[in-house]
């Protein structure tokens, strides 16, 4: 841990030590003129940048990434963000210009929050550090709750607490005064199909060849570390391909990790075993019982620092613990393939709705819905399909909705607002989260088609603020494990965007190119396996054998609910009763989401607003930072 305090500025850092184990002390400091840099993350092209800077006359004391950033700032100033590849949150204090710059990576892997009042400006990688600032009193932000009900995550710069902002992905902020609002700059944009020149090759084989080359290069860039790198393997195609590419590059046997579930509804251990055996990986897994989810959910929310709509981060929290205990600090994952290569059923749903809308009387067109959401019983069982088709038929007319692809999900989210208290609902009538979301949409959005728009929203909401954050970085870093995400290396994103859509979504076959590019190297069972959404037991996990953890009883008691004032006591009670009495094999998504949203919000209130947070276990992962005078 290192720190810098001079005059009115203080910067500090706790380091995980993955690259330049001995030399990368932070902050990096230059005294004349005064520039101080702290970095949370990895800069994958720092050696190239270092050479470039050496050629321009800079001398280096270390081989660290952070010193490279400091010199890069001295050479090109704010433009540096366009030049760096990686996953990062960076703070730069420019003492001569009395200026603070906060910048965040292109896709939002590393967190970065800030808070400003009339006297001071504070920033940190995690909100729990802001909590420690004596003059900051955290209160839940109602906007964040409405946003998460509707979109499953917050949007733009919103964080879960009033006055706390996040630096949005692909942006940096420049503060020229402690009390004045910062200047916000976007330095990169997700490419829309119209923004990039399409790669035009002769046939599928040529696309496959190019794809294999680009992805292997991305894995190679992303595996940068002076410590061993392991891989998460879910049993699906996305992580299998990444693990295979990584296995090709590292010496010896690759270590792989997965979660398995006691509940067969969620378990994919068979597919994971098949992958590990096929490639000869040294595989370990963590077995999750429903009670594991409820027992650890308090810690999960403590690390996620935002309302959650699913418990699925919990098993990954436990997995990173195991990885850490095995002495592994870096893991690759398959996150992002569904977004950039059109893997989600949502995209196919848009395609079918559009196709059916052209001939609404066609039974055959409607019946294509059978091929969606194969992992959900109401879609899998032909008994229920007719009614679902009747429902979808009703949505075909909304053709000019600018958020056509998201409408079904957002309407479901809006319906959840019945669980809010009358006061909250009254307030919510004057707050439109869609307007807030639209403020952050680029001009390319309006010109894009419905699939590209849905893709963009998925990347900005679910991917950035949930998959990479609540379920990704926050869960792995809770146990000092760093995730690497080769599919969303920005060079690979730009490559994927320049592929014609037909090689990504071929008819209704999702991620076509990923499933075929590596040919027989991937077992047929993995290639043809339909998409399975990774999930964990939600509502059910909190009512195992009629037992509910004490903290849940307390937080969802009518007294506490009334005191917090955000939720409708009676309706939450109804939900709890339903949890206790539920007899079906699987709970509906709406009940699951409502329960987890309410519980995680009540936990945020308990931990960060009431301050009932630091059990010894939680404190052990939140080290004290000592600042030293330089």
């Amino acid at each position: 841990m290192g720190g810098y305090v001079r005059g009115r500025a203080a910067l500090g850092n706790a380091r995980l030590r993955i690259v330049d184990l001995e030399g990368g002390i932070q902050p990096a400091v230059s005294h004349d003129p005064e520039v101080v840099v702290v970095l949370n993350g990895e800069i994958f092209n720092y050696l190239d940048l270092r050479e470039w800077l050496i050629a321009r006359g800079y001398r280096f004391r270390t081989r660290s990434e952070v010193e490279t950033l400091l010199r890069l700032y001295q050479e090109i100033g704010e433009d540096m963000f366009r030049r760096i590849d990686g996953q990062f949150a960076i703070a730069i204090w420019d003492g001569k210009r009395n200026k603070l710059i906060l910048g965040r990576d292109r896709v939002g892997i590393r967190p970065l929050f800030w808070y400003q009042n009339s006297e001071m400006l504070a920033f940190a990688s995690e909100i729990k550090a802001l909590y420690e600032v004596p003059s900051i009193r955290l209160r839940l932000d109602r906007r964040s709750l409405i946003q998460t009900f509707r979109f499953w995550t917050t949007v733009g710069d919103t964080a879960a607490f009033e006055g706390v902002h996040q630096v949005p992905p692909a942006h940096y902020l420049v503060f020229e005064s402690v009390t004045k609002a910062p200047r916000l700059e976007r330095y990169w944009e997700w490419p829309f199909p119209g923004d990039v020149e399409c790669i035009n090759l002769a046939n599928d084989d040529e696309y496959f060849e190019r794809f294999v080359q680009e992805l292997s290069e991305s894995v190679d860039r992303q595996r940068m570390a002076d410590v061993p790198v392991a891989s998460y393997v879910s049993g699906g195609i996305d992580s299998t391909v990444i693990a295979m590419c990584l296995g090709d590059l590292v010496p010896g046997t690759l270590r792989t990790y997965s979660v398995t579930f006691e509940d067969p509804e969620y378990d994919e251990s068979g597919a994971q075993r098949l992958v590990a055996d096929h490639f000869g990986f040294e595989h370990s897994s963590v077995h999750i019982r429903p009670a594991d989810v409820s027992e650890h959910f308090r810690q999960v929310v403590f690390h996620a620092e935002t309302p959650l709509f699913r418990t699925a981060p919990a098993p990954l929290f436990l997995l990173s613990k195991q990885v850490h205990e095995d002495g592994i600090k870096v893991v690759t994952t398959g996150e992002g393939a569904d977004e950039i290569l059109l893997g989600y059923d949502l995209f196919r749903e848009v395609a079918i709705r559009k196709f059916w809308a052209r001939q609404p009387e066609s039974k055959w067109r409607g019946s294509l819905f059978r091929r969606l959401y194969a992992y959900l019983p109401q879609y899998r069982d032909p008994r229920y399909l007719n009614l679902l088709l009747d429902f979808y038929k009703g949505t075909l007319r909304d053709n000019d909705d600018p958020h056509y692809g998201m409408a079904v999900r957002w309407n479901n989210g809006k319906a959840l607002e019945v669980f809010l208290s009358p006061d909250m609902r009254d307030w919510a009538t004057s707050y439109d989260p869609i307007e807030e979301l639209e403020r952050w949409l680029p001009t390319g959005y309006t010109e894009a088609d419905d699939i590209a728009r849905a893709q963009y929203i998925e990347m900005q909401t679910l991917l950035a603020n949930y998959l990479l954050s609540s379920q990704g970085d926050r869960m792995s870093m809770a146990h000092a494990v760093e995730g690497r995400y080769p599919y969303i290396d920005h060079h690979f994103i730009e490559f994927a965007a320049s592929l014609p859509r037909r090689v990504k979504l071929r008819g209704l076959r999702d991620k076509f190119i990923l499933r075929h590019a590596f040919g027989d190297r991937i077992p047929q069972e993995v290639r043809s396996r339909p998409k399975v959404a990774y999930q964990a037991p939600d509502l059910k996990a909190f009512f195992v054998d009629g037992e509910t953890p004490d903290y849940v009883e307390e937080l969802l008691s009518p007294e506490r609910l009334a005191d917090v004032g955000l939720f409708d006591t009676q309706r939450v009670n109804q939900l709890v009763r339903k949890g206790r009495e539920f007899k079906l094999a699987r709970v509906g998504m709406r009940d699951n989401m409502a329960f987890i949203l309410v519980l995680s919000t009540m936990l945020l209130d308990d931990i960060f607003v009431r301050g009932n947070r630091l059990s010894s276990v939680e404190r052990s992962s939140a080290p004290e930072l000592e600042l030293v005078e330089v």
Partner: protein
Amino acid sequence: MADREQTFESVRDELIDFVLENFPSDCTADNLPLNESLLELGIIDSMGVIELVEFLESKWSIRIDESEITHERMGGITKMTNLVLEKIGVLQAGG
């Protein structure tokens, strides 16, 4: 005839109670629309369809066929009530 009406009302009310108890919404027993699809009203989600069908089947010991799980037969409380009555023999098919 009076019996039929009584049975209709009792089945309908049980159904309304089940919906209100299990699918929180802004509707009450007084204003729940009886002739509109619960799915389209946003009161249930797609999984709610399964919960409803399983409730109808276990409550009245009936079997609902695949061809009957449609908007036409189940799109609303009244339609579902008639479907139940038909199954338990109080109502002629199509009546």
